[in-house]
C-alpha cells in the first residue's frame, strides 16, 4: 500500500543546501511525540541519514508538548518523522487507525467518516483522517490485506496439522472450496457496503494495489494446495482460481439465502467445473489425435483407390 507521504509536485531543486536564516535553529529540535507510542520489542527500520542531525544538546526543551491520554514519552524525531528504536512509525499508527475504523464501516461505509470515527476511538482528533485519501481507498486495501493475512495463517495452521498427522490431507477441490469459503466469509460483517468497496477498488489509481493483493492471495492458496507446477499450468491455475473467486464474490453480493447457501453451492459447482476442465482438455487432445489418424487413413485409402499409390 503505497502511502506516498511526500507528494512533491514541484520539480524541486534537489540537493538543496538549505541556507537557514539565523532566526531558525540549525538542528532538529528535541521533541516529544504526542501520539506515537512506545513499541517496546520492535526494532525500527534504520534511521535515515538525517538522523545525524539529532543533537542532544543543552537546549532546553522549551516546547514540550502537552500530556495526552497515553502518557508522554520523549522520542527523538528525525527528519520526516522516523522514530528511534522504541517508537512506532507513522505507518504503524496509520494501520492502527484503519483497524479501529473498520468497526464503523457498517454504519458509515468505506469513507473518510469511518476513518475519522476510528481515529476518535484512539483518542486522536477527527482531523487525523486527513492523512488518508478522501475516498476511503486505503481503508479498503488495509481490510483486504488483513483478510489475506488471516487466510494465510489459517492455511498455515491447517498445513501444520496435516504434517503432524492429526488430519487427513484434503483433495484439491475440497481444499480450494474450503479456502475460498473461509476467505469469503470474512466479508460477511461488511457485506452491505462491500459493493461500494468493489467499485472503489476499480478506480484507476487503486487497480495496481488491488490486483497485487488478489494475485498474492491466489498464489498463497495454490501454494498451500500443493501446486508444484512450473510450466504453463501455473498461469492457467491462477487465472482459473481468480475467475472462480471473483464470480463467487459477485454472487455473494446479491445472495439472500440463509448463511449464503446459494453462494457455497455456486462455489462447489465452479470448482468442480475447473477440475473437469483438466480432464476435458485431455479428452479433447485424444479425440484430436484419433481424428487425425482417421483422416490419414482415409487419405491413404483414396490414394489406393485412384491408383496413385501403385508402384510401376
Amino acid at each position: 500500500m503505497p502511502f506516498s507521504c511526500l507528494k512533491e509536485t514541484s520539480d524541486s531543486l534537489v540537493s538543496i543546501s538549505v541556507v537557514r536564516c539565523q532566526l531558525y535553529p540549525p538542528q532538529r529540535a528535541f521533541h516529544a511525540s504526542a501520539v506515537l507510542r512506545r513499541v517496546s520489542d520492535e526494532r525500527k527500520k534504520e534511521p535515515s541519514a538525517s538522523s545525524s542531525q539529532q543533537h542532544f544538546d543543552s537546549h532546553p526543551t522549551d516546547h514540550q508538548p502537552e500530556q495526552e491520554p497515553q502518557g508522554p514519552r520523549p522520542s527523538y524525531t528525525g527528519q520526516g518523522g522516523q522514530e528511534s528504536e522504541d517508537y512506532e512509525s507513522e505507518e504503524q499508527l496509520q494501520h492502527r487507525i484503519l483497524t479501529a475504523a473498520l468497526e464503523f464501516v457498517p454504519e458509515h461505509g468505506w469513507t473518510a467518516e469511518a476513518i475519522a470515527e476510528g481515529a476518535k476511538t484512539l483518542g486522536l482528533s477527527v482531523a487525523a483522517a486527513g492523512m488518508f485519501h478522501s475516498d476511503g481507498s486505503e481503508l479498503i486495501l488495509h481490510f483486504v490485506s488483513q483478510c489475506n493475512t488471516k487466510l494465510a495463517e489459517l492455511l498455515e495452521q491447517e498445513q501444520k496439522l496435516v504434517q503432524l498427522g492429526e488430519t487427513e490431507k484434503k483433495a484439491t477441490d475440497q481444499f480450494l472450496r474450503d479456502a475460498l469459503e473461509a476467505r469469503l466469509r470474512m466479508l460477511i460483517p461488511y457485506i452491505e457496503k462491500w459493493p461500494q468497496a468493489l467499485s472503489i477498488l476499480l478506480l484507476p489509481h487503486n487497480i495496481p494495489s488491488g490486483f497485487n493483493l488478489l494475485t498474492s492471495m491466489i498464489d498463497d492458496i495454490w501454494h498451500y494446495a500443493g501446486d508444484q507446477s512450473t510450466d504453463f499450468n501455473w498461469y492457467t491455475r491462477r487465472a482459473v482460481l481468480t475467475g472462480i473467486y471473483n464470480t463467487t464474490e459477485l454472487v455473494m453480493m446479491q445472495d439472500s439465502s440463509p448463511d449464503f447457501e446459494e453462494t457455497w453451492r455456486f462455489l462447489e459447482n465452479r470448482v468442480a467445473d475447473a477440475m473437469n476442465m483438466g480432464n476435458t482438455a485431455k479428452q479433447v487432445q485424444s479425440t484430436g489425435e484419433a481424428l487425425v489418424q482417421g483422416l490419414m487413413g482415409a487419405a491413404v485409402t483414396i490414394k489406393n483407390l485412384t491408383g496413385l499409390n501403385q508402384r510401376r
Partner: protein
Amino acid sequence: MAAGLGLCPCRALLGGRRGALRALVRPARGLAAAKETHFGFQTVSEEEKGEKVYQVFENVAKKYDIMNDSMSLGIHRLWKDILMHKMNPSPGTLLLDVAGGTGDIAFRFINYVRSIRERQLQRKLKHHQNLSWQEIADSYQEEAIKPLGDSQVVVCDINKEMLKVGRQKAQHLGYSEGLSWVVGNAEELPFDDNKFDVYTIAFGIRNVTHIDLALQEAYRVLKPGGRFLCLEFSQVNNPLLSRLYDLYSFQIIPVLGEIIAGDWKSYQYLVESIRRFPPQEEFKAMIEDAGFLKVDYQNLTSGIVAIHSGFKL
C-alpha cells in the same frame, strides 16, 4: 537569494533612508541592541515590523476583499476552495483560523460542514425505511437544532479592523452560529493546549515576525492527531511563468492598489513580502522543526500558491 539579514548596497537604496543608514552603521556597532528582520525589502527592527504590518492591514481592511479579487482575478476563491476540500472536515470539527480577518476560510468551513451534515441526515433517513412520523419529525428537529453538528470555527486575528470587517460580512451574509471572533497574536495564542482539530492560516504567516513561534503555537493548541494547514504564496517553479509573475507583481499590483484602495505602499509591501517568504521545501523543514509529522505540500497554479499540511502525531 539573500536569505538572512544583510542587504546588498543596491537594496539599501531601495529601502528607506533609515534602513540604509542602519545597514551602514550596523557593522560598526557589532551586536545591535534590537534584532532586525525584513519588512518587504526593507530592514526594520522586530518590534517595528509588527507595528508596520498592523498599519498595513488597518489601511487595507475595508478594501481587502475587493483587492484580493482584482489582484488574483478571482482565483483566490479557487485556492481557498481547494484548501477546504483538502481539509475535508467532518461535522464536529473545531477549527482555528488564524490571521483569518475577513473570514473567507471560516465561511467556507461553515458551508462545507453544513452540506456534509445534511447529506448525513439524509442518508440516515434513507437507511431506516420504516420510520414512524414521530421519528421523522425528531430527526428534522435534530437537523434544525444542530445544523452544523457541533462544528465550530474560531477566527483569530491580531488586527481589530480586519475582524470588524469580517464580523460585518458575517452579519451581512447571514452566518450566525458556530463562529467566534477573537483578537490574538499568532506568536502567542490566547488558547489552551490541545484544543483544536484543525489550524489554518491562509495568506497570513508571511506577515508574522517570528514564523517559528507561530508554528510552535500551532503545535501547542492542536489536539493530538490534529492538522496544520497553511495556504501561502510561494516560489514559482516555471521560469517563464516566474518572469511574467514578477512583472505582474511589481508593475501592476501596486498600481491596482493605488487605484482601488488608494494605497500604493501597502501593496508594494505585500508583493515584496511574498518574495521574502521561504520556498516550499524550506518552509516544509520549518514545519517539521516545530514537531509536525507527515508534512507535505501541494503547489497550486504551478507554485504561485502552496498548501502545506502537517499532523501533530
